[in-house]
């Protein structure tokens, strides 16, 4: 991929002075957020008003190298640090060459945003959507570090009638990212998205297959314990548990459907995703949905969102751990088994939420949003929130308040 990026930069460098047709643009959001629970965190938001959760800045440069060949790059910096990055570390989100082969066919090569959902491409651009942030029950924190694909795609638009178009995207490449201390390398990743659109509505389906390697330094150490236990006892249950802590070349399927409909002043946006994992081994079963209703006054857009999220890691491994604990109820077995169970259960998340908010477009290219999102946590989990103090009983609900101002320039 470094070779590809070098080639892109060299291509641009050799052409950048031959054309004047460049467009520089940018976006930014400054937001404050607060959770109404002590010792509890959503993203970067806790019980103190804090800027990091929804504050972002991005710049974009686009230009034509020839009439059919163009270059695009976008770099953004976000206070929300997911994966292995620090807050506000600049990230290259887009870096690609685009070739317009015909009026309806475009090829892009380089780094592109993944196309899982309607707002995947502009997740950082608050001005482009009505809410403070895309609903996290679909745009889940857990999967956000896997938002870029290094590779390429093909975009084809089919004119079906005067009012109707079908956008077809085929893509392939590789995805790398970190989720907590877990490294994910999905190579190859490939899939498609289909969007049927008219001026006032769209329907969308996307399908990704990710051939995934998952590993973690801390889990590797735990895996070595299970190898020792297997050697010591000869019991295959330890091998089964140990092998579920990493994945090598496992295929995960990501599906998403979505729709958007504007009628007069009303708007409806809804999306649902689900991940299909293998029945055994390292498996992350996840699904989520949201339904949002909006009403556009001239400058005010009140909105509401209903949403749900459910994530289960290695559900077939937990019964094995319980069985092993029953059969080997002594240290060091119990120490390792209980630690593994806690680690797996920390990924368990089940939540339902209701969001109410209002967007006010008070200046050209600038808006402010006020939002409150109420979460109910189910199945003994804390949803996508994290208790900061393990000694206290985790809350069964929480509310996240946000005020954010978005601008594009």
């Amino acid at each position: 991929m470094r070779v590809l990026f070098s080639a892109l930069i060299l291509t641009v460098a050799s052409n950048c002075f031959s054309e004047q047709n460049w467009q520089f643009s940018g976006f930014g959001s400054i937001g404050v957020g607060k959770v109404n629970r002590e010792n509890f965190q959503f993203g970067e938001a806790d019980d103190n008003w804090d800027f990091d959760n929804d504050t972002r800045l991005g710049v974009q440069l686009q230009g034509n190298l020839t009439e059919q060949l163009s270059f695009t790059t976008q770099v953004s910096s976000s206070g929300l640090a997911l994966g292995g990055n620090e807050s506000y570390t600049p990230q290259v989100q887009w870096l690609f060459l685009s070739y317009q082969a015909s009026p309806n066919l475009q090829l892009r090569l380089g780094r592109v945003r993944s196309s899982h959902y309607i707002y995947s491409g502009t997740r950082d651009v608050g001005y482009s959507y009505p809410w403070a942030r895309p609903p996290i029950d679909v745009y889940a924190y857990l999967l956000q570090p896997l938002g870029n694909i290094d590779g390429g795609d093909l975009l084809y638009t089919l004119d079906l009638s005067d009012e109707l178009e079908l956008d077809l995207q085929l893509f392939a490449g590789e995805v790398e990212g970190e989720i907590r201390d877990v490294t994910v390398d999905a190579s190859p990743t490939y899939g498609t998205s289909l969007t049927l659109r008219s001026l006032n509505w769209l329907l969308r389906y996307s399908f990704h297959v990710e051939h995934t390697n998952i590993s973690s330094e801390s889990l590797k150490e735990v895996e070595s314990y299970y190898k020792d236990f297997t050697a010591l006892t000869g019991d295959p249950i330890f091998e089964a548990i140990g092998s579920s802590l990493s994945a090598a070349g496992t295929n995960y399927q990501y599906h998403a459907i979505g729709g958007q409909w504007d009628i007069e002043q009303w708007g409806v946006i809804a999306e649902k995703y689900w991940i299909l994992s293998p029945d055994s081994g390292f498996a992350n079963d996840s699904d989520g949905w949201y339904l949002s209703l909006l009403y556009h006054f001239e400058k005010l857009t009140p909105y509401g969102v209903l949403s749900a999220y459910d994530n289960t890691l290695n559900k077939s491994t937990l019964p094995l751990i319980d069985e092993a604990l029953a059969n080997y109820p002594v240290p060091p077995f119990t120490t390792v088994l209980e630690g593994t169970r806690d680690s797996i259960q920390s990924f368990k998340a089940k939540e339902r939420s209701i969001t109410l908010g209002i967007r006010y477009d008070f200046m050209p290219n600038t808006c402010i949003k006020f939002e409150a999102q109420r979460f109910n946590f189910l199945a003994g989990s804390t949803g996508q929130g994290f208790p900061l103090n393990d000694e206290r009983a985790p809350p069964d609900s929480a509310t996240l308040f946000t005020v954010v101002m978005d601008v594009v320039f």
Partner: protein
Amino acid sequence: MGQLIRSTSLQLIIGLSVMLCAGLCRADIFVVTNQDNPVQQLTTKEVRKVFLGRLHLYPGTEHEPVAIDQSQTSDLYRTFYEKIIGISLPKLKRYRAYYLFSGKGKIPSEVTSQQAVVDAVLRSTYAIGYLKNPGKNTLQQVKVLYRSPLED
């Protein structure tokens, strides 16, 4: 009898004036390009796609349209997008942010006056802009790709 004739004549004059004004005062929007552009005309759908950034090459050519917008604060900007393109301005703003930053292409550059649109079209072969009731001299300098009457 004389009063009846005067009254009828007055009604006739008013009627003719209204008809004449309907012809002369009618507001039309012209979508124009450089005379060297080989494209001869565009359909409503093609005009819509150009200004929403979804027409990447002129039909039958290998040339990219360079779209020029009137000032966002002008009445013509609002009229053009609401009546011709069929999109409200708040929705257009969100669409533009979505389109621009999702790597799909560029958005029209904005100029501050009708004359600035004409100047941009005269400078660039593949520039395309929209004008309201341009004068005869202007129409002789540019090529009209699309024309639509407006109901003010």
